[in-house]
């Protein structure tokens, strides 16, 4: 519903990181792999600030080991917050038995997110625990934490190497989640050097074995700045299952406001 005033410490931290980034860039030769990894991540975040609000449709195609598919259709609205994580509203269209179910989330950079679920059959809004980061989202190979917005403070970093991926020069950076409820010990991320777009992520489980790989395709640029992948596939190496996300109808600057993200809007979201 209504967000409490944000702690100023967080604002300062983000600003400090953003301001210091260009300074660090001038002295790359002196940096440790940790500093280099942080610098790359700050630059990636910086390039994705200022988009204000978006609306999009998403198809989620779940595939089991035998190749059988099942489909979910979801609509997403997001509103950027200046000094905090984003606000988002997710509405489910398919499968039809969950049609009208909606999910409201106020993500925060360091403290736990605030999340509410609307159950249309009972007309009930339920505040839910946001501790469930590692659980699967709608039976897919995506965990809840894989679908939340990227915030610099959520990880510690280490630059590994440069590598070519999808025909692009890329940085390879290792990310260590700071949240103890994360299902991962680390993520290895490939970011192309030109636009800092994530090309691929390897996820390592709590036992540090390779669990999943997420590959991004079909990047389009919006408002001359913001890159969005229209197709991404998460493959689970341990179960042989995979999930593909197909985005369509991206809209930026639709004029969403804070008042589009409260319990009233959650109840009539569709």
């Amino acid at each position: 519903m209504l967000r409490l005033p944000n702690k100023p410490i967080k604002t300062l931290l983000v600003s400090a990181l953003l301001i210091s980034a260009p300074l660090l860039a001038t002295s790359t030769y002196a940096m440790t792999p940790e500093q280099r990894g942080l610098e790359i991540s700050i630059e990636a975040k910086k390039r994705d600030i200022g988009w204000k609000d978006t609306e999009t449709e998403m198809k989620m195609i779940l595939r089991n080991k035998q190749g059988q598919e099942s489909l979910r259709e979801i609509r997403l609205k997001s509103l950027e917050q200046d000094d905090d994580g984003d606000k988002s509203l997710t509405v489910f269209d398919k499968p039809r038995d969950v049609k009208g179910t909606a999910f409201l989330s106020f993500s925060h950079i360091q403290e736990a997110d605030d999340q509410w679920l609307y159950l249309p059959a009972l007309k009930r809004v339920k505040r839910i625990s946001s501790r469930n980061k590692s659980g699967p989202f709608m039976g897919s190979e995506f965990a809840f934490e894989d679908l939340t917005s990227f915030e610099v403070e959520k990880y510690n970093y280490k630059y590994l190497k440069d590598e070519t991926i999808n025909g692009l020069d890329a940085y390879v950076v290792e990310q260590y989640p700071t949240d103890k409820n994360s299902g991962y010990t680390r993520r290895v991320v490939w970011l192309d050097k030109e636009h800092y777009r994530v090309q691929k992520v390897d996820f390592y489980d709590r036992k540090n074995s390779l669990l999943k790989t997420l590959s991004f395709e079909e990047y389009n640029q919006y408002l001359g700045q913001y890159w969005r992948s229209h197709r991404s596939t998460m493959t689970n190496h341990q179960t042989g299952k995979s999930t593909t996300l197909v985005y369509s109808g991206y809209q930026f600057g639709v004029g969403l406001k804070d008042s589009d993200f409260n319990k009233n809007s959650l109840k009539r979201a569709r």
Partner: protein
Amino acid sequence: MSASFLKCSALIGSALLASPALMAGEAVDFEFSGKVGYEARAFFNDALHAGQPGNSNSSVFVEPEFYWQWNNGDDSLTFVPYLRADEHDSRRSHADIRELAWIHVGDDWELRTGIRKVFWGVTEFQHLVDVINQTDSVEDTDGEDKLGQQMVNLSLVRDWGILDFYLMPGFRERTFAGTEGRLRGSLVVDTDNVSYESSAEENHLDTAIRWSHTVGDFDMGLYWFHGTNRDPVLTESGSNLLIHYEQMDQFGLDVQATIEDWLWKFETIYRDSTSDSYVALQGGFEYTFIGVMETAMDVGILLEYGWDSRGETNTVSAQDDLYLGARLTLNDAQSTEFLAGIGQDLDHSSYSLFVEASRRFGANWKVSLDARIFDTDESIDALYAVRKDDMMQLTVERYF
């Protein structure tokens, strides 16, 4: 359905169809969805009361939803009729308008006009503070099925919370099982003989005001309801029960604290009517173990306690009762779920037990299997009349 309810529905329908936006032929989005279902019940014991049928019952139901929106989504109209046909109980065969409402959204306000369903509360085993809609009690024993309520609801969004005002012209009578229905008391409720405390009878204008807000980990709501008590006073007359609806004032509070994996829940009401004034409360917690035993499964544990100042009477469902539940969610592609719960009366040996399992099949089918067990030796307990109605229920739903 009462004449006033039908009249109200017709009025809302015609007013909406004549609304300027629709007349002007602006872009209107239309969506049709809904479900049909088949339900089979098997009772473990022979019926206890005269007139009740054998040990099986079939039933079909349909609930389509018609939805229009225009004005860029700032105006919408929802129409949800409901129909059930039951093999044995002619009263369980019934129709209702669950929703027929126009919602207009302003910048920091909403006006919702028509027949609607409104849910208040946070607890799982009993819904004390949920007071707006009448219970459609022929549907199920859990009291979660509701009849549509005609209303005008203005909702204001402020920094200090959401404030809702309700005007409810007209009252819906509770549905009751007929002679041929299982899961009823020994006496049949005479639904043709209804009396009211108010001289306006079922046309009394009920009002409610509710404030709700989120502060950090706490979600809370506080309200005052003034109008016809949804719970009737039933009095014995020969082999029937007569229905009397009183006026009441009710104050309610619900709070949920969401702290890490814990959901702490509390509801309380104070109800004041001519025949009674009392306090009741329900409180407890829900705790979820995420990803148990290195799997994707979640296990939730629920514990609640219910108390009522009236003590032991057969109209009170929880005067000193403990509820324990467990929820198993597989988090698989078919959304397989299990829920089991037990309600134990702490004052004597009486309990009710339920197990619910559900799973999606293909893209559009859902199958649920429920079991309900009631056990008591105490004739004063509310469960005494249904002690022979233990049952299994299979529900197959097709969504469209």
